[in-house]
Every structure is written in structure tokens, then in C-alpha cells.
């Protein structure tokens, strides 16, 4: 790419003018508050002042008899939620493999329909599923009855043992369109020569998918996984909408997002505490940062070898 050398254009204020609005708003509203949040986790409030507190807030979060229970429970639930959520990737990639079949008809219709739930807000998805799964309303039992499985019905969202799993599946239902679309895009961009060469070698059908196509779309799968990871440890809306800020029943669906909300703002008998809220947010930040670093250093480096 040839550029006009800087000598001919002494005045370069336009670069500053072009960059300033974006950099200023991004810095003031995103980066500074983020660091302010991290900083506040090291302070405690006394009267109207913030007082230096070292890492004592983290001690409370990890070991305090009452608060640590909530934190470890939310963290455990969040990890479990992430594991269930990861099911969306094989399902999405499988659907994409079918959609990418040459000579498939009505592909655009399937893509459009399967992507639809992704666009709906958590309010609609959460309440919609709450109604469908409600024992008061007959939709879920009649549907299960239609396939002869009526005995399987239970108030899934109301039982401690199944509520979080159910929410995980609702989330998979909503977001399966994302891995499907990204994997589809990656699959149709595989050069024809590679597929032809595989066919000449007698690698066809399912074997071709697993041995030729799947290794080629690893970078996309890595990207989808890290997006899922970040989205999960930052989730809040679905649990808040369907189960309330307390992660009912009995905190069994409480995740870090709802814990952050309650700790920061207070809820019912619990008083809000900006410093403990900042401490929870800092833990979420560290978890997400760790995930992103693993992705960037390990996964990204390993998979880049397969790229064409």
C-alpha cells in the first residue's frame, strides 16, 4: 500500500481530530470506570470516604463465613452454566455442516428460522419459556404427551435440582444460531480444491467432515468458544428475568452476574456495598481475562498452524 509521505502534509492535526471522539468517549466511559472499579475493590467505605483496605475484601469474599458461601456457589453455578452452554457449539456446527452441503435446497429458510431466537431479548426468551414450562399451562406436558413422554414432565424451573440445567438449555436454544452462522461461513469458504483433493483420495461424507473440514475450521471454533466463555461469566439477564435477583429456588441458579447485582445494589435485607460489588466485578474481570489469555496464547497459536 502506498501512502502519501508525511513530508508533503506537514499539518497532521486531522489524525487527532479523527481519533479524538472515539478515544475520549471510550476512555472516559469504559476504560476509566473499569480501572476505577478494580481500584475500589481495594478500598472500603467509612462514612463518606473510601479507606484503603488492601486485599481484605477478597479475603471476605473467599473465606468469610456468610459471604464466601454465596461467592463459591455462584462461581460453581457459573462454571456449570458454561459447560451446558458449550453444547451449543457441537449442535451449531452440526447444523452448519448440514446447511453447507452442496445442492441443499431451502438453506436460507433454515438459516433464517434457526437464527431467529438469537435476536429476541432475554425478557421475551426468559418469560416465554417460563410460561411454556409452567405446570399451570398445558403446553409442555401436551407436547411431551404427543411424543409419548408425558411422564417426563416436571416443573423444571422450580426445582433446585433442574433449574440451572434448564436455564442452560434455554440459553443454548437462544444462541445456537451464532455458532451455526460462524461455522457455516467458515465451511463455505473452504477452497473447492481441498474438497476435490479429498474426494480423489476417497475421503467423502462424514469422514470428510471430521478429517478435512473440521480441522480447517478450528480457528472459528476457538473464536466461538471464547465468545461463549466471555458471555457466560458476564451473564445476568436470563437468570434475573426468570428466577429473580436471588437466583431462585434457594440460590440454585445464582451466577456471578446476579451476585454482583445484589452485592452492589443490595436486595431485600442485604445492603448494597460498592466496594464488595467492585470486588465481585474484579473477580469476574480476572476470570474473563484468564480465559482470553489462554485463548490468545495457547489456542490461537496452536490453531493458526492449520490456517490456509
Amino acid at each position, binding site marked *: 500500500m502506498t501512502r502519501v509521505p508525511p513530508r508533503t502534509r506537514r499539518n497532521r492535526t486531522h489524525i487527532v481530530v479523527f481519533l479524538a471522539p472515539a478515544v475520549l468517549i471510550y476512555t472516559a466511559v469504559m476504560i476509566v*470506570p473499569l480501572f476505577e472499579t478494580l481500584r475500589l475493590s481495594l478500598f472500603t467505605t467509612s462514612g463518606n470516604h473510601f479507606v484503603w483496605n488492601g486485599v481484605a475484601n477478597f479475603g471476605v469474599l473467599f473465606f468469610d463465613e456468610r459471604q464466601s458461601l454465596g461467592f463459591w456457589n455462584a462461581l460453581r453455578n457459573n462454571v456449570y452454566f458454561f459447560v451446558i452452554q458449550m453444547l451449543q457449539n457441537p449442535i451449531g456446527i452440526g447444523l452448519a455442516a448440514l446447511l453447507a452441503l452442496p445442492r441443499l435446497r431451502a438453506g436460507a429458510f433454515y438459516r433464517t428460522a434457526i437464527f431467529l431466537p438469537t435476536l429476541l431479548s432475554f425478557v421475551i426468551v426468559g418469560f416465554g419459556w417460563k410460561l411454556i414450562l409452567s405446570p399451570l399451562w398445558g403446553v409442555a406436558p401436551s407436547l411431551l404427551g404427543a411424543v409419548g413422554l408425558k411422564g417426563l414432565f416436571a416443573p423444571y424451573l422450580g426445582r433446585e435440582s433442574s433449574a440451572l440445567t434448564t436455564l442452560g438449555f434455554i440459553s443454548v436454544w437462544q444462541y445456537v444460531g451464532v455458532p451455526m452462522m460462524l461455522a457455516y461461513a467458515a465451511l463455505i469458504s473452504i477452497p473447492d480444491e481441498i474438497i476435490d483433493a479429498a474426494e480423489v483420495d476417497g475421503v467423502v461424507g462424514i469422514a470428510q467432515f471430521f478429517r478435512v473440514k473440521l480441522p480447517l475450521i478450528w480457528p472459528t471454533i476457538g473464536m466461538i468458544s471464547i465468545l461463549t466463555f466471555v458471555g457466560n461469566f458476564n451473564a445476568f439477564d436470563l437468570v434475573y428475568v426468570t428466577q429473580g435477583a436471588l437466583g431462585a429456588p434457594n440460590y440454585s441458579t445464582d451466577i456471578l452476574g446476579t451476585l454482583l447485582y445484589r452485592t452492589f445494589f443490595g436486595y431485600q435485607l442485604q445492603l448494597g456495598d460498592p466496594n464488595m460489588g467492585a470486588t465481585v466485578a474484579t473477580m469476574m474481570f480476572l476470570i474473563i481475562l484468564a480465559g482470553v489469555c489462554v485463548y490468545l496464547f495457547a489456542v490461537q497459536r496452536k490453531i493458526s498452524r492449520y490456517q490456509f
Partner: protein
Amino acid sequence: MLAAHAVLIAYTAVAVLPVLFIVMNSFKSRRAIFLAPLALPGPGSFDLVGYTTVLKTGAFGSYFANSLIVTLASLAGIIAFGSMAAFALAEYRFRLNTLTALYLMLGIMIPIRLGTVGILELMVAGHLVNTLVALILVYVASGLPVAVFVLTEFMRTISDDLKNAGRVDGLSEYEIYFWLVLPLVRPAIATVAVFTMIPIWNDLWFPLILAPGEATKTITLGAQQFIGQYVTDWNAVLAALSLGIFPVVGLYLIFSKNLIRGITSGAVK
């Protein structure tokens, strides 16, 4: 091929039927909702009582207007400032170019919600709590990283000859950005717009924290609270849910071709 269609039809049903059940039952009387939830609304069961309740009791007009203002203003900010920054990063060689680009793209991986404690502090200090401006500022900041990333990639593909011809003709750098480059990246701008619009419209967290007042409630927050209050009035709840579904589905069907093309072309890079 037949098996592929069978699987795809089955999954399409899984994706679409729950949405269809909600919309279908919102047009039925309370009795019909419970007696025959799987039946289509017919002459005996058709009833708009849910919609009249929603429109009478909820201030949905004002919530809708708030959402529209916030979404459109945020989009305008993201696209204007994002494309300007992208142009500077794609066009000029200067010392801090790579560093600035990396700095702006940090936000793709780190969600803005983690800074909520600091953001609320900032908005309290600026007397912006319970204003739409607070929401717009947050959404512009959170939308900029992706916009800058996508638009920089696109702007790098524009030929230098065109821009240099403009320079020879005496156009200023601002004119080159506005008259030559912006029209050429219009498809990329459309993709960015659709993708940033959806999470802004659907967000619950920041309206709940920064602007929960009645005058500034967005449709997502308003619907959530309305449904929470009317949870036993199934007609009203189903109607409120359907009212949230219609605009999104309508927009989606209009833009779906561009949207899917946008994802595919963006991901191929």
C-alpha cells in the same frame, strides 16, 4: 439429503415453535389459552383482551420512544465516531497507530458491565443518572471497539488511487473521508449497525442500573417490570411478549439477507 432435511426441519421446529406458541396464544381468550394451548386462535377463541390491557395500563408508548431514541442516538454515535477512528487507523501511518488500534479493540473481549461500579460513580458525579444520555454514552463506548475493528478492515481494502486523485483535486482529508470513503463502506456500516443495534435494544442491565425512572424506562426494562406485576394475567403477559417479538422479527425479515451476508463475509476474512 432426505435425512439432512429431516434434521433441519426438526431443529427449525424447535427454534420457531416456542415463539409461535407465545404469539398464537396472545390472540386467544383466557379460557382458550388454558383449554387448548396448542390450537390456533379461531372464531370461538379469538380475543384481543391482552393487548387492550397492555395498551391501557403500561406506558408502552413512552418506553418504546425511549428505546428508539437511545438505540438510534447510540448507533449514530458509534457509526460517526467509529468510522472516523477507523479511517485514521486505516489511512495514516503514525507512531501510535498500532497501539491505538489495540487499545480500542481491548473492549471487544472485556465486557463493559464489569466497570458498572465505576460507571455509576461517573454518572452520579455528572448528574446523568436517570437520563437517556447516560445510556447513550455507555452504549456508544461499548459499541465502538467492534465498529472500529470491522470498519478498519474494510477501509484498508479501498484503493489509494481514488483517495490520491481526490487529494490532487484539492479535497481536504475531511472531505476525502466524508465524500469518498464513507459511501464506499456503506455495506460494512449496515452490518455494524444491525449487530450493534440488537444488544442495545435488548439490554436490561444498564437501564436497570442507570435509568430505572419511569420517564427514562426502555421497552425491555418496562416489559420486564410490567410482566413481573401482571404475572397472573396471562393474556396481558402473552400480549406484552408478542409486542416485543413483532418489531424484532419484522426488522429481521427485512434485513435478514444483508445480516446473513454480513456475517458470512465478515467471518470469511
